[in-house]
């Protein structure tokens, strides 16, 4: 399998799907002439032309709605929202329309739409440009929400999302774009939506995470192995549908769990996972489930405060030690 970056995996998949299906089209701000704010769509306008790669004005509510309407008539739009922060001006279209149309109209029409967007943030992006909102969408029945951590999953899940007949939120991460990994070349390789993966097997404690935090968990697991603690890493990959059986099977085996996510602590993804574990594996737990998440303030800009506000390898190690006590 060739080793490529997460960015390249996305770029390749978008190109291949544009080639495969004439109803697939890309839409978003700065995806064409500018080549993508984070270069995910680089070269695609040149190759597929402006009918397939559509530069939009800054009008998220409008073009997300347009994409939903177009999907209702059989197009398969893949919308890029520059970062998840900007989807808030379009959230009505996603939550009140895209997620409801198939169910509310008795299954008469499908909405085969993908919205791709990077979530979270490292560096000093500041209060309005660093947020994690995937849990807002995962909360919403009718949407599918995926968040790959590796180039392999990025490719497999993006292809699955584009070929899926329901609206899919495809959550990326700025910090993962340059990471590398194996990616299969098979044209029909997909990663199924709604299925988690045990990315590393272990016996002492299960760490549950997704997206960038899975990358952090994998590094930490390696480090803990040197200290004699065997960490199993469950990568959720999908937040909705949530693969509860995989989480529970792992926790029943290790008897300890730490959940880590980049969003704010209260009402975040980690709360859902922890609740699931206590409901379905309470009798198997040797210690309370530990949660690691973002500090609850608007992210301060100042360098040190900013860095210290996000969950890190350090905070994960702290939680693992605590659950092992």
């Amino acid at each position, binding site marked *: 399998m060739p080793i490529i970056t997460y960015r390249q995996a996305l770029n390749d998949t978008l190109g291949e799907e544009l080639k495969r299906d004439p109803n697939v089209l890309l839409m978003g701000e700065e995806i064409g002439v500018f080549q993508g704010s984070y270069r995910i769509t680089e070269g695609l306008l040149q190759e597929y032309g402006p009918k397939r790669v559509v530069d939009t004005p800054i*009008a998220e509510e409008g073009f997300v709605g347009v994409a939903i309407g177009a999907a209702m008539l059989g197009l398969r739009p893949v919308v890029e929202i520059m970062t998840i922060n900007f989807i808030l001006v379009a959230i009505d279209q996603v939550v009140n329309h895209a997620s409801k149309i198939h169910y509310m109209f008795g299954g008469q029409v499908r909405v085969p739409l993908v919205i791709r967007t990077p979530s979270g943030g490292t560096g000093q992006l500041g209060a309005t440009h660093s947020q994690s909102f995937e849990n807002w969408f995962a909360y919403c029945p009718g949407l599918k929400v995926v968040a790959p951590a590796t180039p392999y999953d990025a490719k497999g899940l993006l292809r699955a999302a584009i070929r899926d007949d329901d609206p899919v939120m495809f959550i990326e991460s700025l910090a993962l774009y340059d990471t590398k990994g194996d990616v299969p070349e098979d044209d029909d390789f997909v990663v199924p939506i709604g299925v988690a993966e045990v990315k590393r097997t272990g016996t002492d404690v299960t760490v549950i995470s997704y997206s960038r935090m899975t990358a952090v968990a994998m590094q930490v697991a390696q480090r803990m192995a040197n200290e004699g603690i065997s960490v199993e890493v469950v990568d959720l990959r999908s937040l909705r549908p949530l693969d509860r059986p995989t989480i529970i099977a792992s926790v029943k085996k290790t008897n300890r769990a730490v959940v880590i996510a980049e969003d704010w602590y209260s009402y975040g993804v980690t709360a859902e996972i922890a609740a699931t574990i206590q409901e379905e594996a309470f009798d198997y737990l040797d210690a309370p489930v530990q949660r690691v998440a973002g500090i609850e303030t608007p992210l301060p800009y100042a360098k040190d405060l900013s860095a210290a506000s996000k969950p890190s390898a350090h905070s994960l190690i702290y939680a693992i030690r605590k659950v092992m006590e």
Partner: protein
Amino acid sequence: MVKEANVVYPSLVDEDANELRHYYYQMLLLRRFEERTGEMYVKAKIGGYCHLNLGEEATIVGLMAALKAEDYIFTNYRDHGYVLARGTPPGPIMAELFGKETGVSGGRGGSMHLFDAERHFMGGYAIVGGQVPLAVGAAYALRYQEKSGVVVAQMGDATTNIGAFYESLNLAKLWKCPVLFFIVNNGYGMGTSVAMGSSEPDLWKKGASFRIHGEQIDGTDVLAVRDACRRLRDYAEREADPVILDMVSFRFRGHSVIDSDRYRNPEFVRKGRQEHDPVRNFATLLHEHAIIDDAWLKATADQVEQEIQQAIDFANASSDPKIEDLYQFMYATEVANTPGPEDALAAVKINRGEV
């Protein structure tokens, strides 16, 4: 580049020479502040996203010359020049860009989120269009409280394509709010030209269906900007009626300091900077009218250089916000079950691996 309301100044006889020199000084201050800011970013003194006002100096200085102390200003994230020209000292502005406690937002906001309550600078906002309804709301409050003054809703050209802009136009007209919808038309929103993003490229016409008067002004001519702003500011205040100003200028560099600007033809950029440089053009005009000479220009440049160096020194010497103050501004008033300084220290220690 400007089609309407293009004022030509055959003579500067009615002008106060000291005021003209002051405009030049302010424009140079903005120019050099931004150029040095770009350098500081490269040196990693500044992080996150950072957008410069290069090429927009006349638009900003002309606006500020027309505003009164009681007026309020809301801008987008490209905000450094507005705060500077409104009179905030360069030190606390640079300190904010450096993320220091002495910064205008206490190091919490950064480049895109400057604020100066005392000078009625009501913030730089980084979600496109977000500031526009806020400005209408401020004007609403002025009217409600029967106060004088107007509110500036500054935005970029591409921001006139977002829904919040149109809702704001309607509300401002409907509710008689004295707002200057101040469009800084630098020709681009990131890599999207005005023509690419807007079905009506004459942005000053965008108020037509709301019955809002609009004008296009040469945003590189500080006197044209000042005069249009004075006239329309007074109109807006007197009639309690919003107006649109479409200030045309040329964006000197990429969208932000990390944008390499590869989508614009280098020759187009070179020519644009050559022909539409508000600072140099104004210097030429003042020179021609014998209002300034080379010695004055040199002295002014030296003074500006020194002021900015002092601002950088001030920022460098300032402390970072304290860890225990992480939750300091969470709520305006105390409330139960909310973390405080001790919780901040404990949480940060864990994230940094210090426990």
